[in-house]
């Protein structure tokens, strides 16, 4: 069986999803159901003292692996603090490290991410760091014990697809831990593209949340990820510069 294994846990779905930006949290259980996702990200924030924040955990099936992110962290220290709180709150020991101090492109700080990964791995976390695709950074993350490496396809929320395709391809070829393309995937075809290249999984949030019909889009992404994975396993044919006929070149009726 072609199952993804992260930190000893068998994950049947190679589509991970985020829970941000949905017009209503009530969409989330339906999106999780139609996407077949088993790994779901959440964020940790201060409660709005003036408002009524819903508890997002009420909308996520208990069968899912919760992947709290350290969004909001501007450096390793802040990421480590968030991770420790999430774990102590009883959300399991998986964490997505997200360290961002760039507000324009939301590009992650690869160096602070390495530092946070090293500390949190030692504390027993299953660490999935979100990073800008850079082979040496990915090697460091792997060396300090990251359970997977999550390079971005394009800046968060842009729906621009695999702008970093060639760099992600290098990571897939050279890094042994699973490569999960996270951020920027805007269409199911882009998820399929990542999977065809050999990505272990993709993480999608904005493309689902901002679709006209997020639940139908979740189904589309599920099928795309499955198709892309099958294509990778099937081995795509060679790309050629010149034409090569598909029908026989002899016995013409002339």
């Amino acid at each position: 069986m072609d199952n993804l294994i992260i930190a000893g846990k068998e994950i049947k779905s190679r589509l991970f999803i985020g829970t941000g930006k949905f017009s209503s949290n009530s969409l989330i259980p339906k999106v999780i159901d139609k996407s077949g996702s088993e790994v779901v990200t959440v964020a940790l924030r201060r409660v709005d003292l003036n408002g009524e924040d819903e508890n997002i955990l009420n909308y996520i099936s208990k069968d899912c692996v919760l992947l709290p992110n350290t969004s909001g962290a501007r450096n390793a220290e802040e990421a480590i603090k968030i991770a420790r709180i999430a774990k102590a709150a009883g959300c399991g020991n998986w964490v997505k490290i997200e360290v961002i101090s760039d507000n324009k492109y939301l590009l992650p700080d690869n160096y602070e991410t390495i530092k946070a990964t090293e500390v949190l791995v030692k504390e027993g976390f299953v660490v999935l760091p979100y990073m800008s695709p850079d082979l040496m950074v990915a090697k460091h993350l792997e060396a300090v014990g990251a359970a997977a490496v999550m390079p971005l396809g394009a800046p968060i929320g842009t729906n621009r697809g695999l702008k970093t395709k060639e760099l992600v391809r290098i990571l897939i070829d050279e890094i042994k831990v699973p490569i999960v393309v996270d951020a920027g995937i805007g269409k199911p075809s882009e998820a399929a593209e990542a999977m065809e290249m050999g990505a272990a999984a993709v993480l999608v949030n904005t493309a689902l949340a901002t679709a006209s019909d997020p639940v139908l889009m979740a189904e589309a992404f599920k099928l795309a990820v499955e198709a892309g994975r099958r294509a990778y396993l099937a081995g795509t044919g060679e790309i050629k510069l010149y034409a090569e006929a598909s029908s026989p070149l002899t016995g013409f009726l002339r």
Partner: protein
Amino acid sequence: MLIKFNGTLVEAQATTTITNLLKTHSLSTDGIIVVLNDAILTKEDWSQKTLNDGDSIEILKFLGGG
């Protein structure tokens, strides 16, 4: 006494508890995580631990995120 409540300085009654603080601010307890001076409090602590002047309390929750 003055305490820091989610980053803001607020007045609070001496020896108040987290439970009282939540009631005063009409905050739901569903899914909240309480951190007092960098330590997570258990639910038992919410009603039992009394707060001191200068304490820093963070009331946190998991929200949707990518």
